[in-house]
């Protein structure tokens, strides 16, 4: 029986090795870079990547002062959503989707607010206390605040 389990582990190891040698893709774009934005009343100016992931993964639900975090996102297939996920969160959009679905359909969490355009993200983040979203740098004005990710 022990042999069987070792066989299983060997197979596993080989497959992982195979995956390990597949080249990783990096998608950094200098122009039109994406920034994380928050409502001006949010008492935070810097955030770690881990905490940002926890917020957009819908697992961190309150700012340090206890006020609720409201997350605004574009549809899964939006190019800016894709860019944001890869560049700021360092994960892929499908991973965010499955993390959200695990919460939504097991009752252990809630989905982010879905909006349809960058303009809508800007107005909703500017008007909703505790809001967080993302925008292209060129579309950011002084009604919202940029959050720096460490």
């Amino acid at each position: 029986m022990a042999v069987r389990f070792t066989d299983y582990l060997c197979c596993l190891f080989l497959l992982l090795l195979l995956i390990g040698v597949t080249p990783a893709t990096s998608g950094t774009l200098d122009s039109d870079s994406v920034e994380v934005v928050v409502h001006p009343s949010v008492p935070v100016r810097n955030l770690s990547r881990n905490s940002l992931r926890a917020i957009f993964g819908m697992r961190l639900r309150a700012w340090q002062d206890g006020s609720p975090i409201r997350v605004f996102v574009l549809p899964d297939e939006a190019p800016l959503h894709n860019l944001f996920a890869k560049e700021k969160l360092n994960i892929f959009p499908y991973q965010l989707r499955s993390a959200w679905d695990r919460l939504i359909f097991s009752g252990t969490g809630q989905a982010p607010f879905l909006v349809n355009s960058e303009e809508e993200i800007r107005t909703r983040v500017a008007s909703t206390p505790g809001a967080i979203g993302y925008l292209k740098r060129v579309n950011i004005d002084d009604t919202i605040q940029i959050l720096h990710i460490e």
Partner: protein
Amino acid sequence: MVRIGVLLVILYPSWINAEEKKVLNGLQVHGFLSQGYIKTTDTKNDVFGDSSSGKGSFDFREIGVNASHRPITNLQFSMQLLSRQAGESSKGGIRIDYGFLDYTAITSETKELGVRLGRTKNPLGFYNDTRDVPFTRPSILLPQSIYFDRTRNLGMASDGVQIYGESRNDWGDITAQFGVVFPQVDNKNTEAAIFQKSQPGELTPRLSYIGRIIYERDGGRFRFGISGAQVNAGYDPAEKGDKLSAGSLEFIPLIFSLQYNAERWSFTSEYALRHIDMKNFHNPVLDRSFTGESYYFQGIYRFNPQWEAVVRYDAYYADRKDRDGDEWNAFTNELNNFKGGRPAHSRFAKDLTLGLRWNITPSIMLRAEYHRVNGTGWLSTLDNPNSTFTDQHWNLFAAQASYRF
């Protein structure tokens, strides 16, 4: 007509506002709907209805609606109603899939500790929590070696208390859940899976324990999980004509889960040991103690956000000391005064699966898959009442359309 139009124009903004307020108040409603088709070929084996007949079976539907309400940041109420039609084992009635109160007692930027009261999904492996939601599954049929559909009610959800915690660090995130619960055993499906057929008496839930720890690195690029449970149940014999006595059942599954997520590739593997201990039924077929073993390897490739393919090898052994089922065949033959035992192939199943997924829109999905199966280990005894009429080698083709909101 014009008046109604004007009225709508006036009402529209206030309606939108009300809607927005409601959303910000933390009420959310989501759901899903699916219709499946199953055809088994070159065989009499049936899966989810009369799938071996000429035109196959459309007897596979999943409908779910859930609502969650978060009145304050650390309190959430959640409930999901589920209606599932799948051959003889799920007959489509509406049931409460989960319903609980979730209170986060301690929360900080890097830590969380809370409690859930009510009916919660059983935290087992990567897929059990959302096993009936087509969009969250890697294929139409989950790897049956671990997520068998024939004892689904026993594994799906349970009633009690669950403590959960989370810790987020630079070296990774740890999520843990532990529950003290009563399993859902009072149904025909579970009875048939445990006793091979429906019995006059009743299974009764006993206090059980369940837990899972998941470690995730780099935001889920690498995921590793260990889950386990000790599920206890008793049997209340019927007052008259019951050949079984008041026995007890102890079921201890232990599952190791591993996943690697790259941009186009995902690789997943799970390995499970299942210890089953049944005693005091005064029935030689039932009063046994043995350990089953299961595992699968699964690769998913995403061509683009719309199309993905899955390939999987999935193996199930009811008893790891009798992998080919020969001892079981000999044992049941002897009990039957050597007039033939139960088939050896009912004690294992090796399933090679190839599948395609097409996300037509983010909320509409079509799927098709092919299974080449050796063995009938996870075949439902309700859909296939007589195991001697089943075939060892068989093919299964499945298609499914799903919608979500």
